[in-house]
């Protein structure tokens, strides 16, 4: 009897301890801008602290977006150059999402260590699934084929092509879009957002990309110098050997 009970003790302990401890969220995506176009509140998230030269992935969270309304985002440079950000609906493939892949499924209330930007994201996460559903429901009138394409190919349709329905109803759940923008120069740019005719703009700081030039110079000189030294010494050795 005792020999049967003993092996069960570790398993029982595991089950007791297995009452899952909650996970805290990670850093998330930094907020670049928050603005309001018409009745739609929009937050733009970047993949870095600031928009930088080169390719940026911008994520747009739109709350109160009229159903079927087109959403367009342009970046306008200090010299007037316009970069169109081709936004596409962000596809949620598994479980509750936060647009940056963080898992909030088991999140506790302990957000003390998070920045305020992330907390504002969280309010949207809880209802994200429903937001996605409402997005899909907008496609129903297009028939199953369109919906299937959207689901299987990462929403290959353009966000601007989604205008259908005469009486747009606003969705309180946030809807997510994502697009890549290649920004050529640093300086103060403008983010211009257009939702169903309503426009909003906000300033964006664009900084240079990449590591510190000092760091690159330091490591480059040491590595390059050592390789050159090695090459010279090897050459000398081989010349001495031949002589």
């Amino acid at each position, binding site marked *: 009897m005792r020999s049967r009970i003993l092996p069960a003790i570790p398993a029982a302990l595991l089950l007791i301890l297995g009452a899952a401890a909650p996970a805290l969220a990670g850093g998330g995506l930094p907020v670049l801008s928050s603005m309001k176009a018409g009745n739609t509140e929009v937050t733009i998230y970047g*993949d870095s602290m600031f928009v930088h030269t080169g390719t940026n992935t911008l994520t747009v969270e739109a709350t109160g977006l009229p159903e079927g309304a087109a959403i367009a985002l342009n970046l306008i440079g200090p010299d007037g150059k316009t970069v169109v950000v081709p936004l596409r609906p962000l*596809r949620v493939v598994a479980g509750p999402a936060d647009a940056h892949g963080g898992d*909030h499924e088991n999140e506790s209330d*302990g957000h003390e260590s998070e920045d305020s930007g992330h907390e504002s994201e969280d309010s949207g996460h809880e209802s994200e699934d429903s937001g996605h559903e409402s997005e899909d429901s907008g496609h129903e009138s297009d028939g199953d084929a369109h919906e299937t394409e959207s689901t299987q190919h990462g929403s290959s349709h353009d966000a601007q092509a989604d205008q259908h329905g005469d009486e747009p109803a606003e969705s309180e759940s946030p809807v997510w879009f994502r697009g890549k923008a290649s920004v050529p120069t640093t300086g103060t740019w403008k983010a211009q957002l257009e939702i169903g005719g309503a426009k909003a703009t906000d300033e964006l700081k664009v900084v240079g990309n990449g*590591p510190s030039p000092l760091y690159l110079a330091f490591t480059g000189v040491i590595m390059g110098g050592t390789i050159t030294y*090695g090459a010279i010494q090897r050459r000398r050795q081989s010349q001495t050997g031949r002589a």
Partner: protein
Amino acid sequence: MVAQRNPAPVPPQESNNLLDSPWLKGFLKSRWFPAIFTYPTLLVFGYIIYALLWGPEAASANLGTSLTWVLWWPLIPVFMFTMGRFWCAICPFATTIDLLQKFFGLGRPVPAFLKKYGIWIIDAVFIIITWADHVLGIVESPRGSGYLLGLMLTGVVVTGILYERRSWCRYLCFLGGLSGNYSRSSIVELRATPEICATCTTQSCYKGDGKTAGCPIFEFPRTMQTSANCNLCANCIKTCPNGSIRLDMRPPTKELWFIARPKFEESFLAVVIVGIVLVQNITMLSFWQPVMEFFMSVLFGSKTAAFTAVFLIAMGLPIGVMSAASWLSGRFTGETFAKNFARFGYAVIALDLAGHIAHNFFHLLAEGKSIFYNAAGLFGYQITGSAAIVSMQTIQILQFATLGLGIFGSIFTAYKIAARDQQAGLKAFWPHLIVLLIFGAVNLWLFTMPMEHRV
């Protein structure tokens, strides 16, 4: 005195040679091994460096960060347990050394101070990097991670060109030091057959045979008694003309039971890792902020000073507790504190490894899908979702099971170490048992706390 006691003889090895499989032996002897792994790894590493230094600054959006800290770092201790230091054989740094040495290497002998103090340098670098990770931000910052890898690459290039073989891997790489320690408890070991080696005149396992280089990290399989410095590159399997090399399966931690010449610095590293795991866990827990706030309030509001204080306490506690146990245990055996510490410090390795794996189960299994989302983004597929692969409950069961095995492994190892000393008997064991139970309990408690994501 210690020298007068008679340690129990090491039991004869049972043969469980994986090289009895002609398929495996053929693969390890072929020129494709380990090249089939090294060059793809080097390519991925090149991309990771690029992504970390020039890619998105947000960790959650950077594929380099996901690949490094969500995939590679959690898998590394699992590899070490199952395949010893095999990672070191395919490590991009090692491949870089090999490539550079072909064209620019000067092949100078390793300086004596590196041979003598290499492990201490590894200890110090490990502590500094852990400290810097929290003060300067390495893991959560792609640029920070990139800077660290770039600095290591600089060290690799310099030592690779100046000195012979893989001096960096053997004497300076902190990951090599960690791998060396963990590999002692792995389930495979590469060894030579002494009876065959006794008749050998070529020693090509160390020197190379003209076609294949000798051991890249200065091991002589004939006398090798530890897996700490064997990276399973299979050079010795290729070069040995007598078929002396064996690749045996063994019970986990077995090597730790019979260490012939324990070294204080190696044991010290094992105990340092307890502190590092402690720091890594504590800083990801929900009570970390209040602790930091308290220390900041008494340390003039400086975050760096507050973290440094907590860091020193967390690193010093395991060393202090272990030192006390060694002093007490040494009173039963007649050993000095240092000798006892050196002998029993190895027992902690199993718990280190288990704690490392258990901690990273969280990152791998709760954040694993971020790799997929970020990789999909590279190809224009904008998708997102929960990053969790399994539920938090499943992760915790795995964590506690792993920790349980680690605690058992450490206690059993300490018992076996104590049992070798027939004169002192098990009296020397009890202080270390208490310490291991404390370490185990602290780890178990830490894993019940909420944890923060890396990405």
